[in-house]
C-alpha cells in the first residue's frame, strides 16, 4: 500500500473524503488525493482565520492578532490550499490523460516542500513574523532591525517561503514538463487519452512554463538573500538583490503571473471537461481553434500586464510602462471574451448534462469572470490611483483564489469516481454549490464596495464607518465555510460504485 494511502487512512474526517482502494490506477490517484485532502485541511484553517479578522475588529482584540491572522490566512489560502489543490488535480488529469505516473520523487518532493514550507512559515508567523503574504520587501529586514520580530523568525519564515516557492517554481513545472514530453506512456494508466494539441493540455503546459520563466528570477534574488541570512553569502555579494525595487519587481512579475498561470491552467481544464458533459455526447468544444487562440491571448497579454501593480509609483514608474500595463490588462479581457463565447457557444450548440460537477465548474467560471472584470477596471490608470491599496484590490486577490479553487473543486467532483471508485452525494453537492455561489457573490461585492468607499486593505484598526462591511464579511464568510463543510460532506457521504 502506498505511503499516500497510509497517510489518508490515518487522518480523521478529511481522510474520509478519499477512501482509495489498491488498484492499477493508484499511480495517478493516490498522491493527488493526498494533496487534495491536505489542501482542504489548510483551507479549513485559512477560512476560520479569515472570518476571525472582522471578529477581531468588533471585539477589539488588538491589531497584532489581526496582522498575525491576515498573514496566516493569505499564505494558507494562496499556497497550500489553492495552489496545492490545482497541482493535485492537474497531476491526476495529466497522469490519466497521458498515461504517466503521478507518484514519483518529484510528486512526493512537491508535497513535502509545499507543506513543510507552509508549516515553517506558520510557526514563524506565530512567533511574530507578521509580514502579510505579499512580503513587501524590505519590510522583513526593516521589521527585524526595528525589533518588530526577531532575526530568527525572519530566517525561519524565509526558509518556509523558499521551500514553498521551490515546489511551485521548479518541482511542479519540471514534473509536468517531464510527463508531457519525456516520460514513457503506461497504457494501463491512460484512462482518457489526450494529445498535446488538446486545449486542456496546452493550457497546462503554458501555465507551468509561466511559473518556471517568471519565477526563476525571484528564486535567484530571494535565494541570494536567504544564503546571506544563513551566513553563506557575504553582504557585498547580495547588495543588488537587497535593492527594494529589484525585489519588488521580480516578486510582482512572479506573483501576478502566478495568478495568470493558475487562470490559464483552469481555463484549459474547463475546455477539456466541458465537452465531456455535453448532452449530445459529441465531446467537442464549439471550436478548438478559438479556444487555443484565447489561451494564447491570455498568455501573451498577461505577462507584461503586471505593471498595473506599480502605476501609483509614477513617475518612478515611467508613464509609458503604466499605459502599457493598462492596455495589456484590458487585452487580457479579449482572451476572456473569447473564452466566454467558446463556452456559451459550446453549451448552446451541444446542450449540457446538469451534474453537480458541471454546475460547480460553470459557477466557478462565472466567479472567475466577475472577478476578472473587477481586475480589469482597477487596471485603468485613472481608477487605479483611487482603488489601489483598498479593499477592492484585497477582495480581488481573495475572490480570484475562491473562483479558481471552485473550478478545481468542480474538476474534483468530475474525476472523483475515477480517483476513488466512489460517487459523490448528489443532493449535498448541490446544496454546497448553492451556498458557495451565494457566499462568493456576497463577499465579492462587500469587498468591492468597501474599496470604492475608500476602506484600506490590511489595516489592523478599523474605523466605525467600515464596520458595516465587516458585518457582511462575517455573514458571507460563515456561509462560505458552511458551503465548504457541505462540499466535504458530499465526499465523505460518497457511495461505492461497486454497489
Amino acid at each position, binding site marked *: 500500500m502506498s505511503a499516500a494511502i497510509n497517510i489518508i487512512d490515518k487522518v480523521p474526517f478529511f481522510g474520509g473524503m478519499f477512501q482509495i482502494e489498491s488498484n492499477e490506477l493508484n499511480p495517478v490517484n493516490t498522491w493527488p488525493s493526498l494533496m487534495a485532502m491536505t489542501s482542504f485541511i489548510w483551507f479549513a484553517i485559512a477560512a476560520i482565520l479569515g472570518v476571525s479578522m472582522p471578529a477581531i475588529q468588533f471585539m477589539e482584540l488588538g*491589531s*497584532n492578532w489581526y*496582522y498575525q491572522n491576515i498573514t496566516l490566512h493569505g499564505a494558507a489560502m494562496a499556497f497550500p490550499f489553492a495552489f496545492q489543490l490545482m497541482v493535485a488535480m492537474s497531476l491526476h488529469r495529466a497522469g490519466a490523460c497521458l498515461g504517466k505516473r503521478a507518484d514519483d520523487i518529484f510528486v512526493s518532493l512537491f508535497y513535502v516542500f509545499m507543506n513543510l514550507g507552509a508549516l515553517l512559515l506558520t510557526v514563524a508567523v506565530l512567533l511574530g513574523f507578521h509580514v502579510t503574504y505579499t512580503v513587501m*520587501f524590505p*519590510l522583513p529586514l*526593516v*521589521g527585524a532591525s*526595528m525589533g*518588530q520580530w526577531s532575526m530568527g523568525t525572519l530566517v525561519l519564515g524565509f526558509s518556509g517561503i523558499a521551500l514553498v516557492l521551490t515546489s511551485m517554481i521548479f518541482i511542479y513545472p519540471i514534473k509536468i514538463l517531464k510527463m508531457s514530453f519525456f516520460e514513457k506512456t503506461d497504457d494501463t494508466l491512460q484512462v482518457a487519452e489526450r494529445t498535446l494539441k488538446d486545449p486542456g493540455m496546452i493550457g497546462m503546459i503554458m501555465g507551468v512554463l509561466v511559473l518556471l520563466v517568471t519565477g526563476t528570477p525571484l528564486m535567484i534574488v530571494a535565494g541570494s538573500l536567504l544564503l546571506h541570512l544563513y551566513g553563506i553569502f557575504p553582504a557585498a555579494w547580495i547588495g543588488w538583490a537587497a535593492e*527594494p*525595487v529589484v525585489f*519588488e519587481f521580480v516578486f510582482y512579475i512572479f506573483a501576478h503571473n502566478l495568478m495568470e498561470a493558475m487562470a490559464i491552467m483552469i481555463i484549459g481544464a474547463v475546455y477539456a471537461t466541458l465537452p465531456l458533459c455535453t448532452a*449530445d455526447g459529441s465531446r467537442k468544444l464549439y471550436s478548438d481553434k478559438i479556444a487555443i487562440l484565447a489561451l494564447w491571448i491570455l498568455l501573451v497579454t498577461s505577462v507584461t500586464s503586471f505593471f498595473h501593480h506599480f*502605476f*501609483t*509609483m*509614477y513617475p*518612478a514608474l515611467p508613464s509609458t510602462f*503604466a499605459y502599457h500595463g493598462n492596455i495589456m490588462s*484590458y487585452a487580457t*479581457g*479579449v482572451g476572456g*471574451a473569447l473564452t*466566454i463565447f467558446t463556452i*456559451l*457557444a459550446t*453549451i*448552446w*450548440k*451541444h*446542450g*449540457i448534462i*446538469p451534474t453537480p460537477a458541471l*454546475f460547480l465548474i*460553470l459557477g466557478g467560471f*462565472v466567479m472567475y469572470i*466577475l472577478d476578472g*472584470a473587477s481586475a*480589469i*477596471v*482597477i487596471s*485603468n*490608470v*485613472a*481608477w487605479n*490611483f*483611487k482603488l*489601489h*491599496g*483598498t479593499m477592492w484590490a484585497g477582495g480581488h486577490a481573495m475572490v480570484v483564489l475562491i473562483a479558481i479553487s471552485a473550478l478545481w473543486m468542480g474538476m474534483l467532483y468530475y474525476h472523483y469516481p475515477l480517483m476513488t471508485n466512489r460517487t459523490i452525494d448528489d443532493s449535498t453537492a448541490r446544496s454546497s454549490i448553492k451556498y458557495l455561489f451565494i457566499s462568493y457573490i456576497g463577499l465579492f461585492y462587500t469587498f*468591492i*464596495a468597501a474599496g*470604492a*468607499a*475608500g476602506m*484600506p*486593505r*490590511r*489595516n*489592523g484598526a478599523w474605523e466605525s464607518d467600515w464596520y458595516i462591511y465587516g458585518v457582511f464579511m462575517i455573514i458571507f464568510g460563515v456561509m462560505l465555510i458552511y458551503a465548504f463543510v457541505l462540499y466535504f460532506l458530499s465526499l465523505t457521504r460518497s457511495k461505492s460504485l461497486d454497489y
Partner: protein
Amino acid sequence: MIEYLYTNAWGAFIVLLMFQIPFLIVFFHIVNKKAFIESKPGKTRPEKYSYYRYSWIALVLVAFVVVNSASIKYMPTVVEANSASDPNVKNVDVTASSWAFQFSEREFNVGETVRFKAKSTDTVHSFALHHPDGNLLFTLMLVPGAGTESAVVHTFTVPGEYTVRCLEYCGIAHHAMKNTFTVM
C-alpha cells in the same frame, strides 16, 4: 457624468456593474435554458455563430477602447505631466517612514492646486489622501530607492479635514501611520 465616473471610486463600481450585469443575464439565460428547459442541441446555423462571435468581440473591443479613451484626461499621470511647468502649482514634499509622515507644508486653501512629491526612507509605504467624506482621492506607492519621488497633482475643491494614510502594509503599527490636515 463622465467626470464623476473617473474622479470617484464609485464610478469604477458603476462601470464594473455595466460589464458584469449583461454577462450574468446572458450566461444564466443560456445555461438555464440548456440545462433545464431545452437540453437538446441547438439548431443555430454556423453562419449565425460567426455573426455572434464577431459582434461580441467587436462590442468588447469598442467598450474597452471607449472606457480607456474617455479616462485619459483624468489619469493622474496625465494631469501631473500637463502641470509640470505651471507656476501656480504649489509643491509640497512628503517623507514617509515607519510610522509617520512629514510634510514641507500642511496648510491649504480651497481652489489651491498642489503637487505632492512623496518618498519613503525605509520600507514600502504609500501616501494616500482621503476626502473628508471618506473616499480615497489618490494613493501613491513609495518604494525606497526608486530613484525619484512619486508625484501627483491635486486641486482642493472642498474645505474640511483630510486624512492621510499609508495603504501599503508596513509593519505592526501600519494602521497608526496616518495624519490629518485641514483645508480652509
